[in-house]
């Protein structure tokens, strides 16, 4: 089948999609966007989290055909500018590197999308709010302490930028 959608701001048409494919598979294997990760493919780990019409969703649980006419933003779409040239990372992305929240990094794309959404909704989240928002994202390396640091740092940076 053919699927028409908007991904990271660009209108795309994908042909020859099999009806059984997930949005995650289509992004990774047919659209050259492997940033969203395939750690459990049953909605438990959050590594595949993307924005679907502005709401975070596990792309492994969304059938590719369900996104017809809809808008998807992946971790690749959060930075401004184009890769490697004039790329400006989102403050959440910067904070994850600086705070030491990235080890193996496999959970990172999903955590970044989820944290990005949290800070959009709650500009100054408490620790309890951060923990609740990220409870669906598994990380096996960090013990989450540095992830909390990263979200706090990103929230304060975004608040500073907004105040300027």
């Amino acid at each position: 089948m053919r699927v028409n959608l908007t991904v990271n701001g660009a209108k795309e048409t994908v042909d020859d999609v099999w009806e059984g494919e997930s949005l995650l598979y289509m992004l990774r294997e047919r659209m050259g966007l492997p940033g969203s990760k395939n750690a459990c493919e049953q909605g438990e780990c959050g590594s595949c989290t993307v924005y679907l019409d502005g709401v975070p969703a596990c792309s492994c649980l969304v059938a590719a055909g369900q996104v017809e006419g809809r808008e998807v933003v992946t971790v690749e779409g959060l930075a401004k500018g184009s890769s490697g040239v004039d790329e400006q990372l989102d403050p959440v992305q910067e904070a994850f590197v600086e705070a030491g929240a990235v080890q193996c990094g496999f959970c990172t794309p999903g955590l970044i999308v989820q944290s990005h959404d949290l800070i959009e909704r709650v500009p100054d989240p408490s620790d309890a709010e951060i923990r609740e928002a990220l409870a669906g994202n598994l990380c096996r390396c960090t013990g989450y302490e540095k992830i909390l640091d990263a979200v706090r740092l990103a929230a304060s940076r975004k608040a500073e930028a907004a105040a300027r």
Partner: protein
Amino acid sequence: MTSPVKSPGPVKPNGPVRSPGHVAAPGMGGVGDSPLRPDGTLKVSGEFAYASDLWIDGMLWGATLRSPHPRAKILSIDLGPALAMAGVHAVLTHEDVPGRKLYGLDHTEDQPVLAIGEVRHQGEPIALVAADHPEIARRAMEKIAVEWEVLEPITDARAVIAEPDRYRVQERGGIARHQPVRVGDVDRAKAEAAVVVSSDYSVGIQDQAFLGPESGLAVPAEDGGLDLYVSTQWMHNDLKQIAPCLGLAEDQIRMTLAGVGGAFGGREDLSMQIHAGMLALYTGKPVKMSYNRYESFFGHVHRHPAEMRYEFGATAEGRLLYADVEIILDGGAYTSATLNVTGNAASLGVGPYEIPNIKIDAWGVYTNNPPCGAMRGFGAVQACFAYESMMDKLAEACGISPVRVRQINAVSQGSKLATGQIIDSPAPLAEMLERLEAMPMPAPLGAGPDGEIDIRALPGGVSQTTHGEGVVRGVGYGVGIKNICFSEAFDDYSTARVRLEVIGGEPTALVHTAAAEVGQGLVTLQAQIARTELGVQRVTIHPADNQVGDAGSSSASRQSYMTGGAVKTACEAVRAELLAMAERKLGRAFPGITQGELNVVGGKIMSRTEGVIASIEEILGDDVIEETREFHHHPTSRMDPVTGQGDSHTQLALCVHRAVVDVDVDLGLVKVVEMAAVQDVGKILNLLSLEGQIHGGSAQGLGLAVMEEIVVSGGLVRNPSFTDYLIPTILDMPPMRLDILENPDPKAPYGLRGAGEPPTLSSTPAIVAAIRDATGRALTRVPVRPEHIIRG
């Protein structure tokens, strides 16, 4: 509902070829700083090429048919219907293995590449499929018809020890290794002890649960060889196993490390490497394999489950007189790392305590249960749960505090381990416990900043199963000792190649090793060492591959020590050549170069007496300096097979934990409120990465304490998914307090002490001790389940 399902077509991505590349290390920091990860920007922007992201034009997808039975004979296999499917390019069995049909770690070679006539564990690979689309491969596997004769699985490890010839799982027999340790006279000590405590303990099977599934890409090369992109912990050891099975020479296989999504021991063994190679050689096309989570639970070995019997005797004051210990580790059907896991459990079986009389028998056995091998802590974790539980029992029996009983018996520099090995560098365990006990405690239950109880922070969390009624707080302590680097006469050296040249007017170092970055931050450290040793800012990390010498495994907390040591040594050689070049080009001799008269700092060659002599780029010009060096740790010896004695360990590391828990005693739910840890790391090389290791290691110990277990019955895994195998979430993991000590080990590079594993040991017993403190239950098994708390 009879319309046929449309078959998926071949995949035609419009993305670029994805494979690992050089990464420039950002920032300025040398050893002791915390510069940014070289791979950090790629990882946060989704551009880092993990093994499951690899892609190349025209590639096929490989899949593995696995055994549904833990023990069965294969009477026949019919491949015909699978081969007849459109889009299927190959269906292979053991008959198609081009070379040796067995492989394994440590020269054991007892594991079939594909099952030969019988299977010995659930999930054992039987056949391989290559197809245009992963779904076609999956359907083809369903059409492979296997006729079975199902046998009764051998699942009782203790029965295997009693009658090893009767319960032979494979040709090597029933027992993989029996390692005794004998010190002093335990029988006489038993007569003298004023206090005796004893108990049995069990540890369930823990999974590494790395998030990046086993994946890789095999590309056939024009010379008949292969380019292999894999996520592994040790490329050179993979190659030693892959090449003979594929019937290729080692130099016909070019291996490159693809991005690794965590490891924790689970990538020490091969998974898809030989399989993808077979399919690629057979089809002449690139083949990608990527396990899903279900398959991953069968695609790698786990932490050995343990059954343990401990008896400690002591004076009335709590000073240990003897230990009588039995440790049984169930390794499953194939040897994997069981020999060395058993050695570790034996040598560290009574922990960091001085005990004059010791009798330990550690057994590693074969069964038809899930295969077990390396996981963070490697045999020391299981014993640690038991000996720490015993120390609490001893404290109670003697009427002294858990901290005091540990301090009375603690080792220190100069103490003897159970193996007779003298601890030859600082081991300030008593002081670490003192510091731990003095660390501030979290606010009491119900004394939050606003005086109210936050329900989300109670056991049961957002399920709101209590408002504080039935919740009891407990505090517990745990101590652990872990060997760093490989033990028992193994020369696990590492190799580094360092190249210094001027690029774009700036001196640039290129660091090339085969060491696996698995998430721990080794690439960051390599760049830090190059900056410190060569006085340069710009460092580039070459992709890890086998075009440079062996780096050993990213395990045993050894890479900072070993590959760090190799990079340091290679940099020193480059620096020596640079200084010699300075002498040649400036036409003068600098006396005392080797005594440090000249050094390279901030891009300048500096003389101690004359100050700046020249810049690096002035001396180097268009020349290139490249040096390759091996780094070996000091030799160790095997454990005596009868007495267990010997200087078997390279280095030892200590970590101590305090855990505070709230327990809902009505529902058996546990909330870990806080963990505090004191660890001696010799020298802090990168504080940010180090803290991440202690946090992450502690979290895995928390998982083992209260939630993580592969549940097995009749040899079958009952919970192979993240829905049913739970790992800690951000709601389960509490805030941590850390106190990091730096007592250098003079034998190690920069005085460092390996740091990744020790926190995984001591967090588990600390948490269980805290639950005992809250509930009074004996809790002799981990993970602790609600029913253990409710019913005892």
